[in-house]
């Protein structure tokens, strides 16, 4: 037992919280050990200080006022208890349970419909896909890969092979 434990044990002995053989053993040690005897004496003195020392006080309010506050609080609490104990009217029951349930059901329905809707091109841009566009003069085809962060665009342009146009190209 260390010093701290001995102090607490002696205190428990003085407070009547240590009984039986443990108390007997400690008493025997206190008898034979000067240091423990001194500690025991000091603790006894300190403990004796508190005996019946709670300072009497008077409530700092007039008695009538104090009682009126208590009586009002009791009345208030009783009213509240009665209010809570009253059966809930049918309309309140409808508002309390049916309306929130209906709201939740609508929300679930809306989410389900959205999930089953046809894919939006904008949404699918994150995955690999091809997109083909057509124009009278230019055929455009793109390939987009999200994984590689790359887009390939094919332009299919019908070149006019007339000599002057070809010359222009070659220049």
């Amino acid at each position, binding site marked *: 037992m260390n010093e701290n434990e001995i102090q607490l044990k002696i205190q428990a002995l003085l407070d009547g919280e240590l009984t039986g053989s443990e108390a007997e053993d400690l008493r025997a040690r206190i008898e034979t050990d000067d240091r423990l005897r001194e500690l025991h004496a*000091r*603790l006894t003195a300190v*403990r004796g200080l508190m005996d019946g020392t709670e*300072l009497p006080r008077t409530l700092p309010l007039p008695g009538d006022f104090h009682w009126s506050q208590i009586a009002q609080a009791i009345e208030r609490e009783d009213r509240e208890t009665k209010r809570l104990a009253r059966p809930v009217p049918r309309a309140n029951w409808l508002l309390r349970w049916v309306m929130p349930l209906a709201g939740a059901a609508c929300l679930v329905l809306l989410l389900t419909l959205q999930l089953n809707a046809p894919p939006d091109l904008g949404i699918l841009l994150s995955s690999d896909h091809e997109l083909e566009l057509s124009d009278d003069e230019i055929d455009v085809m793109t390939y987009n890969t999200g994984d590689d962060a790359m887009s390939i665009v094919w332009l299919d342009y019908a070149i006019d092979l007339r000599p002057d146009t070809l010359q222009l190209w070659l220049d």
Partner: protein
Amino acid sequence: MPEEPAYSSAEEPRLVEWAKVGDMQAFEELVSRYRDRIYVRAYSIMRNEDLAVDLSQNAWVKAWQRLDQFHGEASFPTWLSRIVTNLCLDELRRQKRARMDSIEAMEEATGPIENRLEMETVDPVEGLSREELRERIDAALAKLSDKHRTVIVLYEFEQLEYREIAEKMDTSIGTVMSRLFYARKRLASLLKETLKRDGLIE
């Protein structure tokens, strides 16, 4: 016409029985008999006049609502005292949650070191009347932390056992023992300082 009971001269068990069946006047008489006692207990723990008034009023309201649970195992004022003590402990817990209790945390951390310090020896009768000593101890109690003061009040004034204090304070018996020891040691030290300052001891 039935005669109205003489509340002021009625014995406590009769008043309690009347109050249990809804007699507010009987309950008012009980309040007038024990209001100071309940207030003192709240004040001893909280050390705040307004809070002590509020908590003792709440205790009376709770007592009214729970009268059917009072079966006379303890005396009526003891039962009331337990109610106000519980309310005070709840309030201290609420306060603790609302702020960082750094001073107490420090005291808890330094507990083992403090415990190794020598305990002061005080002769409580030296040059002091019992009333003076009460006032000085009361002033010293005000300087203890909430935890240490509460454990002293519950043990010394409410006369609870270690186990009961541990249950009320949601802690272990070992912690109660340690706090009680520290509180007593601190009280002795504070008292010695006061007595020295007033020239009552050397």
